[in-house]
């Protein structure tokens, strides 16, 4: 499929709109028959022009894919449109638990509780419910306890391209 850059950008924009979900770079490569490195450059260009141009949407990179989202600047209008409902934030307990899982995954509930010094069942349940963490397996010891790790949904939730973008523990 030979097309000029403008058409390619517009076509990708349409696909991102229709999908709604994260669209992987591999899927885009298949559609346009363009190799990955080149398409990545196009995507970088798209992200830039979406940010520079005066428009309501932006494109965000999540792992090896891209997704369309709104710009933070216009959130209050969206909230007004949605009957002034704001997104719920996590409890302090859930957030602490999440922080531990981010850096120590895969980790068992017992180890999380050892670090926090308190029971963490409900915090873990909340995070599982929201799809921010998942069971990644079981530890091969007595009782075969469940191991927890983070999901791609977490990246979207925190607006991170990848977990490597988290601050290193020594930087804090």
């Amino acid at each position, binding site marked *: 499929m030979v097309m000029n850059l403008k058409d390619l950008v517009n076509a990708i924009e349409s696909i991102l709109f229709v999908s709604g979900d994260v669209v992987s770079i591999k899927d885009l490569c298949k559609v346009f028959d363009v190799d990955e490195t080149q398409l990545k450059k196009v995507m970088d260009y798209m992200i830039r022009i979406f940010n520079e141009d005066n428009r309501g949407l932006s494109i965000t990179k999540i792992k090896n894919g891209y997704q369309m989202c709104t710009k933070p600047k216009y959130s209050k209008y969206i909230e007004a449109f949605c009957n002034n409902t704001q997104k719920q934030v996590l409890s302090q307990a859930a957030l602490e638990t999440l922080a531990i899982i981010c850096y120590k995954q895969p980790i068992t509930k017992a180890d999380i509780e050892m670090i*926090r*010094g308190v029971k963490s069942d409900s915090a873990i349940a909340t995070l599982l419910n929201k799809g921010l963490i998942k069971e990644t397996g079981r530890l091969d010891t007595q009782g075969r306890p469940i191991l927890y790790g983070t999901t791609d949904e977490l990246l979207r939730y925190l607006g991170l391209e990848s977990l490597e973008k988290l601050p290193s523990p020594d930087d804090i």
Partner: protein
Amino acid sequence: MEYRVKLEVFEGPLDLLLHLIEKSKVDIKDVSITEITDQYLDYLFTLQEFDLEIASEFLVMAATLIQIKSKSLLPITRDSSLLSDSEELDTQQQLIERLIQYKKFKEIATKLREYEKKQAKVYFKTKNDVAHFVEYSDIIPKIKTDDLLLAYKKVISSLKDREIIVETKKYLRQIKRDAYTIKEKKYYILKTLKNKKRLTFNNIIKECSSKLEVIISFLAILELIKDNRISLSQSAPFNDILIEFNPSFDR
């Protein structure tokens, strides 16, 4: 007039300890456990005064603190000094290390909160199910059950000589109707008893045509005894067992 006291809420004993240490403005590593213990206990007493439930984790920590403190107050005797001294240091050192680690994660949590708040202003479209863009009639033309069966047979026969067929066969067991059921046997025995009034175990067994039927008959008899419907008697060991209606059975 209402009197209100606002107590700070802590995420756990470590959170409370960190708060106390920060209040005393000393570095975690230089903290005096003795001093902190008193403040920690004071907080628990305050909670008690207000009849608030104290989570068990807070009590465990209190015990640990008191243990460290009391050990530091005891005179060190020469013979036991080596052991208890290092033990005490261990408990104290472990606690301090846990506090440092917990503090780090608390700080990370604060950072995550920033990300969360920033990202809360960003909205995503929910995932679109593109399946409804496709006409179903294209995928599924008019198909009858027979067509499905035929297609299935084709698939299975094309899989011959392959491992998959072995895999598939595992799930393709025939389900046979039970030749004899305990329920039927029970009914049969009761009916026969009604006609003949008495029956022997051998009578029943002789009529059976297979080992399975013998087993089912035997189980049926056991169930009838359990239900109090029949009674058994035997004149001598290894004699034939007599089966009769249970006279005390109340319908």
